[in-house]
C-alpha cells in the first residue's frame, strides 16, 4: 500500500504523541496520588493510530479503560487530557471522569470506559443515529481481548449485523486480560474468527505495524461508510507495562516474551520501514516529531498543574440536566 508523505507523517506524529503522553502522563498522575485509575497503552500505539486515521471529527469512537491512545488518535487535546488525569477543571470532563472516562463530544469521542466492553453499545447507538439520520458517519467500538468475551459485545455484533449498521468492532488483542492470557480465555484461535458467527468480515492484522492496521481499517471503514454494514477488526498487539502501575507483569509472563514484542515496537518498526523505503521520511524528521511530542507533554503537565481544581459545589453539577440539587444532598449532612 502506497501512502502519501502527509499521511505517513500524521501516522508517526500520532504514535509518538501517544507514546510520550503515556510515558510522561502515567507516572505524573501517580505522583499526584491517582495512579490506581490509569492504564498505560505503551506498545499499542499503532492500533488507534491506524484506525482513527480514517475518521473525521464527525465519526464516533467508543473506547476502553486503556484509552489514552484512542483519545489522542481521535483528536482530543493532550493538554486537556493531562488536566483530566490530574483531576483538574480544564479537563474535557471538568476533572470528574479521569483516565477511564475521558470524553470529547466535539471530537466524536464517546468516552474511555471503565466497564469491559462498556462503550461498545454506545458506538452501535451512534452508528444507528448516523443510519437513521443519513449522516454518513461511522463508529468504531474499541475493546480488548478481555472484552471479546463479554456478552454485550456479542449481542451488539449480532444487532449491528441484523440492522447493517456502520460500525467497526475493533479488538486490541494485547495478549492479556489483566493477568489472564488470551489463549486461556478465548475459545477460538483468533477473536476475528468470531466474525463468521455474525455474518461480517473479520480482519486479523499485526497490531505492531501501523501500516497494516491502516490498510485493514481502511477497508472496514469504507465498507461501513458505503452502507455494507459492520466488520470485526482484530489487531494483535502488546502492552509493555502491567495492567496498572501496581501490576508486575513478570508474575505471569516472561522477560523473553516482553523482549520479543519490544523488538517489534510500532514506532521502531515504522522508523525502520521509512529508512528501508529510502527515507520518504528521514530519521531527522522522526526525531523532530519525537522532540515536539516531548515538549508538548512538558507543556501539558505545566498546563494541567496550573488548571484549577473543581469547586466543591461542582460535586452536584451535571448529574442531571434538570434535578433539584436539594434532592442530591438531602439527608446526607453534606459540608456543601
Amino acid at each position, binding site marked *: 500500500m502506497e501512502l502519501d508523505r502527509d499521511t505517513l507523517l500524521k501516522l508517526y506524529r500520532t504514535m509518538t504523541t501517544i507514546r510520550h503522553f503515556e510515558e510522561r502522563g502515567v507516572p505524573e498522575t501517580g505522583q499526584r496520588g491517582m495512579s490506581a485509575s490509569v492504564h498505560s497503552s505503551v506498545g499499542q500505539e499503532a492500533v488507534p493510530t491506524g484506525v482513527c486515521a480514517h475518521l473525521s471529527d464527525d465519526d*464516533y469512537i*467508543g473506547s476502553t479503560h486503556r484509552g489514552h491512545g484512542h483519545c489522542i488518535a481521535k483528536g482530543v487535546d493532550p493538554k486537556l487530557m493531562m488536566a483530566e488525569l490530574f483531576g483538574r477543571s480544564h*479537563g*474535557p*470532563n*471538568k*476533572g*470528574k*471522569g479521569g483516565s477511564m*472516562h475521558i*470524553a*470529547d*463530544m466535539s471530537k466524536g469521542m*464517546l*468516552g474511555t*470506559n*471503565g*466497564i469491559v466492553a*462498556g462503550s*461498545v*453499545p*454506545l*458506538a*452501535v*447507538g*451512534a452508528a*444507528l*443515529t*448516523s*443510519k*437513521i*439520520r443519513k449522516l454518513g458517519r461511522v463508529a468504531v467500538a474499541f475493546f480488548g481481548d478481555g472484552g471479546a468475551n463479554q*456478552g*454485550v459485545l456479542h*449481542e*451488539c455484533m*449480532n*444487532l449491528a449485523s*441484523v*440492522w447493517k449498521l456502520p460500525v467497526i468492532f475493533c479488538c486490541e488483542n494485547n495478549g492479556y486480560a489483566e493477568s489472564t492470557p488470551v489463549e486461556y480465555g478465548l475459545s477460538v484461535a483468533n477473536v476475528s474468527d468470531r466474525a463468521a458467527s455474525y455474518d461480517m468480515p473479520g480482519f486479523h492484522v499485526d497490531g505492531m505495524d501501523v501500516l497494516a492496521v491502516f490498510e485493514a481499517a481502511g477497508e472496514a471503514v469504507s465498507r461501513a461508510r458505503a452502507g455494507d454494514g459492520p466488520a470485526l477488526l482484530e489487531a494483535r498487539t502488546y502492552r509493555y507495562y502491567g495492567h496498572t502501575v501496581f501490576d508486575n507483569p513478570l508474575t505471569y509472563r516472561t522477560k523473553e516474551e516482553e523482549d520479543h514484542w519490544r523488538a517489534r515496537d510500532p514506532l521502531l518498526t515504522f522508523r525502520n520501514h521509512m529508512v528501508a523505503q529510502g527515507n520518504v521520511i528521514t530519521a531527522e524528521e522522526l526525531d523532530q516529531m519525537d522532540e515536539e511530542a516531548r515538549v508538548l507533554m512538558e507543556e501539558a503537565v505545566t498546563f494541567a498543574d496550573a488548571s484549577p481544581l473543581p469547586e466543591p459545589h461542582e460535586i452536584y*453539577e*451535571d*448529574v*442531571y*440536566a*434538570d*434535578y*433539584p440539587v436539594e*434532592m*442530591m444532598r*438531602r*439527608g446526607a449532612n453534606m459540608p456543601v
Partner: protein
Amino acid sequence: MTTLTETPMLPPPGETRELQTREAINEALIQEMRRDETVIIMGEEIAGGAGREHLGIVDAWGGAFRTTRGLIQEFGNERVLDTPLSEAAFVGTAIGAASTGMRAVAELMFVDFIGVCMDQLLNNAAKMRYMFGGQVKVPFVMLTRIGAGFGSAAQHSESFYSLFSHIPGLKGVCPSDAYTAKGLLLAAIRDDDPVIFFEHKGLYGDTCPVPEEMYTLPLGKARTVRPGADLTIVGISKMTWVAVEAAEELAKEGINAEVIDLLSVSPIDYDHVLDSVRRTHRLLVVDEDTPVCSISSDICARVAEEAFDYLDAPPSRVTPPHTPVPYSRALENIYLPNAERVVNTARRLMA
C-alpha cells in the same frame, strides 16, 4: 400544547375522552413521534412478526401489551425498531443513540429482565453526563412493566423501581392511570435525562378521562387524590387505588385519610408528603415493591428525619414481604398489599 404544571394534576373538566391506560400510552407515543422526528422506539415485539412485510405481515403484535400498536405503520421500521432478544444490546444502543442526537425510547418487556441489561443503565445512561462533565445529554426513556397479581410468578411480576431510584443520574415515574400515563410519558420523552417509565400491568385496562391534546405533567411531583386530615397514606402506581379503597373504608369509621399518589420515584416529592404529614401527624406508605431499602423505607426515613416532632405514631408501611413473588394464587394473594391490610394498619396508627 398545554403544560399543566400549575394544576393539581387531575384531568381538567371537559375536552376529554375515556381512555384506557394502554391507549393513553399509545396515544402519547404516536403524538410525540409526529411532533418530533428524532424520537425513535425499539424493543422486543414493538411491532411483531418483524421482517415479514413481503408476506403482508406488519404490526403482528403491536407490543406484548399492545401499547405500541400502529407505530410501525405510521413511522416505518427506521424509527420503530423490533430488536432481537438482546436487551443489553438494544438498551445500550438506545442510550448510544440518545447521546448522539436522538430521543430514544427502549422497551424492556418486564422489569424483571433488568438483570441482563442493568449495566447499560447503571454505568452508561446514569453516569455519562456526570463523568463527561456535562458534555452530553441522554434523552433516553426505558418503558418497562411492573406488577404482581397475574399468576406470572417471580420473574414476570416484580415492582423493583427502587433499584433505579437508588442510582444517581436516573429518573423514574410510576403513572397510576391513563391521565398521568400520557402526561408523564410526554414529559419523560421530552426530558433531557434518562427516565424509567414503569407501567403497571394491572392498570392497562383501567379508564379515566384523558385530554386529546398533548400535555405534560412534571416529573418529580406527587398529587393528592383524596384530601384528609387524620392520616397520610402514600400510594405508588396501582397501590394508590388500594390506598383510596382503604381510605373509603376508613371513612366509614370516621377516620379521614389523605391519599397521595407519589407518581415519581426519582426525584421523590418528599415535600408533598411532609406537608401532608405535618397536618395529619401520621404516615402510612403502601408500596408493591419489597420492603428492604425501598421507596417505602426511604419515605419513612425522610419523614422521621424531617418531621419527627410532628408524628403521633411511627411512620409505617404496607408492602409485600421480603420474598420473591410466589406463583400460587393462594400465596400471591397474601403477597400483595390490599385494602384490608391498609385498613388494619391504619387503625393501629390511629389507636
